[in-house]
């Protein structure tokens, strides 16, 4: 394994990391045992889940949505399962009870 890693010459000086935010290469979605599932019908787009998420794993996406009762939203809120650790803060804080924690099955 170690032979595939860069040599001392190839590593930038002092181990300084030159690529900002490259932690995205590490998918923390594996940590999850329960996954949050957003019910777009119930979601009121309050953004609490987006604001509270410690992992920036709740995304505001430009997907207009029209509920069955006719309410129109310019955007939707989605979970980024690559990074969501399944902590459940979003579901716990959702004032509309629009997020369910569903057990992961592998």
């Amino acid at each position, binding site marked *: 394994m170690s032979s595939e890693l860069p040599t001392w010459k190839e*590593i930038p000086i002092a181990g300084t990391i030159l690529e900002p935010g490259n932690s995205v290469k590490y998918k923390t979605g594996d940590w999850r045992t329960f996954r949050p599932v957003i019910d777009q019908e119930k979601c009121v787009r309050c953004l609490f889940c987006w604001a509270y998420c410690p992992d920036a794993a709740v995304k505001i996406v430009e997907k207009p949505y029209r509920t069955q009762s006719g309410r129109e939203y310019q955007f939707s809120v989605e979970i980024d399962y690559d990074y969501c650790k399944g902590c459940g803060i979003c579901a716990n804080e959702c004032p509309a009870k629009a997020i369910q924690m569903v057990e992961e099955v592998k």
Partner: protein
Amino acid sequence: MMPEVRWRRLPLNANYAVAHAVKDSDVDVVAAYPITPQTTVVEKISEFIANGELDAEMIHVESEHSALSACVGASAAGARVFTATAAQGLELMHEILHIASGLRLPIVMTIATRALSAPISIWCDYSDVMNARDASWVTMFVSSAQEAYDSVIQAFKIAEHPDVLLPVMVAYDGFIMSHTYEPVLVAEDPAPIREFIPKRRDRIVLDPEKPVTMGPIAMPEWYYEIKYQQVEAMKNAYRVVKETIDEFAKRFGRRYPVVETYRLEDAEIGILTYGAIYGTLREAIDIMRSKGMKVGAIKLRLWRPFPYEEVLQAIKHLKLLIVADRAISYGARIAGPVALEIMSLLLYESERPEVMSVVIGIGQRTVTEEDFEQIAKLGAKWLEEKRIPRETIYWGVRGVTYA
């Protein structure tokens, strides 16, 4: 053809000489805390800034730990930085010494060397700087105020060299040099000095235009390679120090070799030391020579990286090398740090002098020409009797005698 440099001859102690060098090097940030016998360096730099002679930020930190920490921050942000300390201050910095070098920051620091507590002593020896041996700082010992001035300027050139990027420490005797005045040539106009050490913009710094992460956590599969880079940087520093000495000599006419010798060519016994005491040693050599003794002197100017080639070259013809150290490695059979270093080098040489380790001048115990003469005579006697001591001689301690 470069314009001729005009010099001003000023009566300065080593502390003031250093302050002049800092000013002439156009340092951007100084962070320092007062400690005897370094204090007047910081006072003089403050004066230069207060009078507009140096445009720099002075951070009046609340401790030496913060002094070096602030230097790390400032250097990481791309500034040319300087600090100075001694003894307890250097000890308090110790943690950050390793981080400054580990982050590869070209910080320059001067040390007015001083004995360590306890008992508390404000007087000179080299136990403070010797304790910093393994911190991966390029380390120089200088012997005059002029050399201190010139070495600080050289230090910036060495530290900032892209093949080095290590911090540099310039050490000189507390009180013996920090508080005694000598005539020193300082640049009339700092421009030629600043041209000699132009501000480089080629290293990685904290810059919002190019965000980097400095000082991450390195797991076992990464740490070793990153530390090995420092091993290579030190090797490069050995070359760059010598190149800088040559360039400096060419430009400014003053040369300080990594190892200096005096009347050594035909000597049978050589005495090696460092710092201000080298002056006393040279006087002693003249006295001994006048009495027909075949003795010579060696001054070690560069401590890290250790100039093994030059040291071996200088000492290989000797019958006896006496290493006069000014620090004690307690519990070691050979307790002089430089003696120990040289003995390890000689292990690989088939032709080698006998080595005698002597500790002198601890806590600024006076060392005279007479002391060196007696040590040399004792060494000559023991050499003839083939009984060079296998452990360090503690010269000048009441209650300890040698015959």
